[in-house]
Structure formats: C-alpha cells, structure tokens
C-alpha cells in the first residue's frame, strides 16, 4: 500500500487510495490536519502535531515549527540540548502520519508519495526524500504540490477537455501551474513560483504592527512573547477574512499595544506581498502560451487561499470566480493519494496519465568570446530550459578555452539569469582532459531530470570516452547514505508519546498555554482544572479519563470563546 502525504509548512495531511477514490486519514485526535510541529516534553519524549503546536507558546525552546522553510539548507534547529536537521524534524512528522495511516488501514505502510512545492530546488527535493527515508518510508515519487491539486481537481471534473490554472498559496510557499486535460491525459504546461512567500508572511505583517504601536523592539528577542504574538496575529488574519475587521491587545513587560485593522487597511499593508504573486503568474501564462481569458477555471489550493483578500485578488486577476467544491487545505493530499493510486496501477485509474515539467532552467557556466576579441566569463548556458516536460535528458558539447588546458570544470546552476552569479549553484563536476588543439578535446555534458524532479549530471570526454558524474560539493546541505543511516539510528532511539495518550497530552498542553495567557479568576479556574485532570490521569481508569477529558475540553472551549475571558485583557 502506498500513501499520499502532503508535508506542509504549517500543516501536514495523509491520504490513501481506497475503494476507487482518495480518502483522507484522520489523526489520533480525529482531525485530518496535523500541525507540522515537533517538540519535546520535560521527560525528553517527542511530541508531534497539535500538542506540539500548543506548546510552541509555553515551551518555545523545546518546540519547532516552520522547518520546511529550511529544507535543503545546512541550518540546525536546537531543541533543548539536542540538534536537529530540518530533514529529521520532517521525518518525525512523517512518522506520525505513517502511524495514523497504519491505524486507519490496519496494515504496515512502507511506501509513500510525498508532495513538494513545484519550485523546490534540487537540494530541497533531496532533503525531502531523505526525510522520507528517515521516517522509514520509501519515497515512490516526489510530486509537485500544484500538480497534486490538479490531479484531485481532475478526478473531480471527469473526462472533460479543459485547461485551468492552479493557484497554490500554502503556509510558506507559492506555486502556480497551468494544466491541460484531454482524453485522460493531465498535462502540466508550465509551473512557476516563489519559495519564500506564503500565508505565514501575511501573519508576520500583522504581528509587526504591534511593534509600531507600543511594544519596544527588544521584545523580539523574547521567544515566548514572539510565539504569543504570532498566534494572536494568525487569529487576527483569520478574523479579517471572516468579519472584515480584527483587533487584539498584547502586552510585554508593562508596555501595551493595541492593534486594530480592517480589510482595506490589511490589503494596503499586504500590497508588497500581493505584488509578488504576479510575477510567477505572468511567467506561467507566458510559458504555457495561454492567455488568462482562455483558462476554463482557476483552482485554489493551500490554506492561505482562504483569505478573502486572496480570493478577491484571484477573481480580479482572471476575471472569474475560482472553482469551488474542493477544500484548499485538503486538495494536495487528495492528489497525492491519486498519484499513489496511479503508482499501484489501480483499475479505476486505468485511463489516467499525467505529465509534469521541470519548473526552472538548468545549465552550466561558459566563457564567451567578445566581439572585439578577448573573453568574458560567468555567462550562463541553459541545457534544460524551464517548463520542459519531464523526464528529460539533454546533452550539449563544450570546448576548453585554452589549448593547453588539462582540466575542465563544469559548474551546475539553476535559474533564469544571464549571468551565473545571479543563479543558484548546485555543484560542479571536474574532468581531466588531454591538452591539445581546443576543438578536438571537447566534453559532452548530459543533464537528466527525472519525474521526481531530481537532477543527474554526466560529463564525458569526447576523446577518451571517460565519464564523470556530479558530486555535490561539501556544502553539508546534502546527507550521505552513511549519515542517513546514522541519523536513522538516532531517531529510532527517541521515545515518542504513544498515540493513544496524545489526545490527553494535547488537552493539557492547551490548558497550560491558556493558563499562561489568562489573568485573575479565569487563570485560577484553569489551574484548578489542570490539577484535577492530572489527578484523573493518574488514576489510570480509562472510563473515568474518557469522561473527564470530554468535560475538560468543553470547559476550555467555553473559556476560550468567552470574550470576557479573552486572553491578555485585565478584568
């Protein structure tokens, strides 16, 4: 059985292909969305999902979130006295999802389709695959998120001939894909995106307002405060979409800030971010050679497209209302399950096939002869042009600059700029060559880009037939097989809270977070409830625990929704 996993910046989901259709898998708390948060409790045991998200505010030094943004980099996240790579934190989330799927299906899971933003680079994709391996999952396929959304949408639409655009604004990344569907073929015509633009950036804008209305800048160093402010900004962002206005008050060491915002002011504030949405859209339309007016539909994916501002913008951009009927939070995971079904060659999908593209240009560095003689270095020579259908393999011949040259270095770059210094360097292959007349000793450079979006570079010397493959340089961003094995052992040694106690742990974490936020009688009340519930847990009587958990949850919900007890307000 292969599962489909949407490993998101903010939330992750798992879905399976079952009984001829994609089905979402609920986690231990009964929810489809598992927050992509990992933390440790004071006993050194790992907490994943909702419980960790609650503890972000109470225990920021023991909890991590948004680590998808660092995938493929050498950045280390420190939790308590332990260091983690972003791959490892992602692996812990994947492991929790895997266990949920196993509980749902009643069979062990070893293979998965994992989604990545279409605009993820080679290093980010390799890191995602490593995360899968660390979680004990063989990654059958890395699937681009907008393509996954399109697959789910295509299943929904049936066999109609159509072309549409997927607008995928997630927690941390933005992707656009244009697709064409005919005769059961789902073809991605073009993808473009921005890896550093997502819903979290809109919340950050609101959070920053607190600093311009009374909170001193020193407060930025206070992790507990920043988490609290972030949560408040996130809530305000949602409220703005629902009610058209939002306000909150927050205090730090005696200084107070009150933030008040309506939809118009928020849109004005977010203008720089909104402007950044345009470039990928224009590029994708241009690459697909399709006019906005020719699109039959616009599909929204990613939780951030719930923002009313984004919906209005999409409507304005394309002169039509976006497609409704699919939940933007769930559509990517459903599409991953469809891909898993395709992989398992399920009968219901016999007539469906999908092709995807490489969303960026890949090339090498060359020296150019100038018009007046002389040489200029640093020019970019594309080998695979962006939005070429994958899998693809392209070869080009290059010649050494100097006749006495004994070595030729092939730099591997990703990007669209004319000069390599403005593109992303992926690595370098160096091959020895026979010195001699420059034109005889050329090299053939072959770039192969597979369906998973992973690149292989092969350089062969024409004269000798010697072949050299890409070695990613020591930028420690890449994990070797031995390192994966070592980290796998380290992760296996971590103690994880058993799935069946997760619900009660989450309740306690939420209560503790509220206790820190509340003041006065409400605080006392929550404190008493926590003490009582801990006593009940200690009794180890399952019936009693189950009954009290329900009461406890309802009581907490009542306090949270009661504006009189609204956090941070002094009675």
């Amino acid at each position, binding site marked *: 059985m292969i599962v489909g996993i949407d490993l998101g910046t903010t939330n992750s989901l798992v879905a399976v292909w079952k009984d001829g259709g994609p089905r979402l898998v609920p986690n231990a708390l009964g929810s489809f969305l598992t927050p992509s948060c990992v933390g440790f409790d004071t006993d050194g045991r790992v907490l994943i999902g909702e419980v960790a998200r609650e503890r972000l505010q109470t225990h920021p030094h023991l909890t991590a979130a948004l680590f998808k943004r660092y995938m493929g980099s050498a950045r280390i996240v420190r939790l308590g006295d332990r260091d983690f790579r972003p791959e490892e934190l992602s692996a812990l989330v994947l492991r929790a999802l895997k266990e949920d799927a196993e509980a749902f299906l009643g069979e062990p899971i070893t293979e998965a389709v994992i989604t990545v933003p279409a605009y993820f680079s080679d290093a980010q994709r390799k890191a995602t695959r490593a995360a899968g391996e660390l979680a004990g999952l063989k990654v059958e396929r890395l699937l681009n998120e907008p393509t996954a959304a399109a697959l789910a949408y295509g299943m929904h639409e049936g066999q109609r001939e159509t072309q549409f655009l997927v607008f995928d604004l997630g927690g941390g990344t933005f992707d656009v894909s244009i697709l064409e569907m005919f005769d*059961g073929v789902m073809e991605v015509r073009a993808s473009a995106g921005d890896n550093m633009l997502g819903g979290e950036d809109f919340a950050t804008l609101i959070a920053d307002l607190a600093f311009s209305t009374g909170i001193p800048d020193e407060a930025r160093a206070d992790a507990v405060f920043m988490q609290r402010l972030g949560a408040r900004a996130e809530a305000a962002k949602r409220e703005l979409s629902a009610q058209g206005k939002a306000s909150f008050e927050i205090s730090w060491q005696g200084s107070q800030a009150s933030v008040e915002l309506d939809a118009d002011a928020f849109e004005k504030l977010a203008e720089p971010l909104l402007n950044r949405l345009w470039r990928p859209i224009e590029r994708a339309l241009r690459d697909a*050679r399709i006019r906005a007016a020719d699109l039959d539909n616009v599909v929204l994916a990613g939780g951030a497209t719930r923002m009313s501002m984004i919906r209005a913008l999409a409507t304005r951009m394309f002169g039509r209302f976006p497609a409704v009927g699919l939940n933007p939070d769930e559509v990517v995971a459903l599409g991953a399950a469809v891909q898993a079904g395709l992989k398992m060659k399920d009968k219901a999908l016999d007539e469906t096939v999908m092709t995807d593209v490489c969303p960026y240009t890949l090339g090498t560095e060359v020296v150019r002869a100038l018009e007046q003689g002389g040489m200029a270095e640093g020019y970019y020579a594309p080998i695979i042009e962006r939005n070429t259908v994958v*899998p693809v393999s392209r070869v080009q011949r290059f010649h050494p600059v100097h006749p006495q040259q004994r070595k030729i270095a092939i730099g591997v770059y990703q990007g*669209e700029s004319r000069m390599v210094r403005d593109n992303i360097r992926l690595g370098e292959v160096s091959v020895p060559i026979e010195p001699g007349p420059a034109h005889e000793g050329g090299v053939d450079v072959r770039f192969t880009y*597979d369906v998973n979006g992973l690149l292989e570079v092969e350089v062969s010397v024409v004269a000798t037939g010697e072949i050299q493959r890409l070695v990613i340089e020591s930028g420690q961003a890449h994990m070797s097989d031995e390192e994966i094995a070592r980290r796998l052992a380290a992760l296996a040694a971590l103690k994880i809270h058993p799935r069946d106690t997760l619900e009660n742990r989450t309740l306690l974490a939420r209560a503790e977070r509220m206790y820190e936020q509340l003041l006065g009688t409400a605080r006392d009340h929550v404190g008493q409830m926590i003490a009582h519930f801990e006593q009940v847990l200690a009794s180890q009587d399952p019936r009693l625990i189950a009954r009290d958990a329900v009461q406890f949850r309802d009581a907490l919900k009542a306090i949270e929704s009661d504006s009189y007890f609204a956090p941070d307000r002094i009675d």
Partner: protein
Amino acid sequence: MTTPWFLSHLGLDASAGEREVKRAYAQQLKAIDQATDPVAFDRLRQAYEVARGFVADNGQPTAPTALDTGNTPPAPRSEPQQAVDGHQPPVQEASHLDTPTTLGRRALDRFCYRVHGGDDADIARELAASLADLRLQHPGAKAVFEEGLIERLAVGGMRQRAAVFRVAMDQLGWNDLSHFRGLGAGGGAWIEAVERQRHTLSQSWDGPRLMVALEAIVRGSPMHDHLDTWHAANEALSRYPQLMALYLTPEQAAEWARQYTRRPRAEASAGPGHRIGWLPLAILTVMILGMIIRAFE
C-alpha cells in the same frame, strides 16, 4: 504529400487535425511508463510537440520574424499593438471596456510624460506604480506596455532612456533569459545586444574614454575643447550602436554626425593616427638603445 515523421510516429496521416493528434498522443502515452522508459517517452513527446505546432499552423500562414541580432538598432514598428504577445486577436470585440492595448498604451504615455524629470529612484517608483495600476486593469495590458517601452527605448521616443532601461531591467525581469522568449520580435534581442555591449564596453581599456565622449555629446559641449573626443565618440557610435541609442536621441545622433563630417580641417587631420601607441615607441627606444650599446662595443 508524404506524411511527416512526427505524424507517422503518432500513427496519423497528413490530414490529421488537433483533435486526432491529441487522441493519438493520449493513447500512446498510456502505454509508456515514464519512469522506466524515458527514451520512448522523449521520442513520443518530440513527435507530439512538433505535430501540435504543425496542425496549429496548418491553414494560417505564420511568418516567424527573425530576431534582430545585428549591429543596427531595430527599425521602429509601425503598429506596436499588433506585435503584442502573439495571441492577441486582431479584432477586439466591441465593448464598453477598454482593451488591453488601449490601457497599456495609455499607461505608457503617462509614464513617459512623468519621467521627464527626476532621478533613478523617481523613475523606479513611477514604473512600479504604472505596473501595479496595469495589473488591476487587465492581465494583458502589461505586455502591451512592455512592448511599447522597448520600442520607445529603441527608437529614442522618450527622455531619460538610460535610466529607464536600468530600472526596467530590474522591475520587468529583462535580466531573465527566458523572459525574452515571450517578448515580441526584436525586443529581447535588443536588450540582449545592449547588455552585451555594456559588458564589452566596461571590460575594454578605453571604456571610460568613450563614456566621457558620449556625455560630451549629450551635453552638447563645444567639441573643439577636446580634440580626442570627436574620434572617440565616433568610434563609440559605430561599435556600440544599441548602447549609444540609449543615451542619444536620433536627432542628437544626426546632429552630431553632421558636425563631425563638417569639422574643421585642422581637427580632421588630427585623426586617430595622430596618437602613437606606446608599443611602437617602446620598440623604437629599445632599438636605439641597442644601437648605442653596440656602437660603444
């Protein structure tokens, strides 16, 4: 008419239309495993892509315009609105709404009017504002604006062109290789040519001298003040036509050429040969020294 290879690969004959091409491709694609048989997939893809282009062009003559990469600035296009984006329908349906062409051209006129004065930062702000406006008006309007802007830069239809060019490189993505592909004929090639010349000029040993010459012409300062500048400027104009076109309007260039041909005889005789390079001088010195030394032996 024999069947082209791409149609026979798809099992079709020369009469096939778009519908048949898509259906044949879909059928063959389902029989191939992309992950394990990339070679067969690649061949099918190539056949399909060529075939689709072929059937789309069938019946309607297309004249692919050769990109202008020569040393002459591209000729002004008489009807820029036709060159937009290639897919622009020739006839817009009558509507009470403005067409993207009208919107784009109106915004361009306003932009050109506003950048008469002001420095780089003002121009950058104006351009950003114009682009933001266009986006809200119509998705196609920006392409019209961009096409028109390139044309005006190329033919000298606006002020502050060098500064506008710098700002547009940044904001319109003119530094982006494949961005050119989507631009109309000549536009991308012109930008590429300008950038190449700019690079060459900055690398060449007489770059600063040529730029001084150019500024002298732009200011219209009296030429006989710097004899050297006459020839340097002439060189610059012939060697870097695209780059120079950014700085000079056609009228300025014509006026300068007129002055150059009518320059006083004394200055004309002080042509480029007037300056003796350091290399012959050095050789001469070495030879004389050698003779002197030999004479002493």
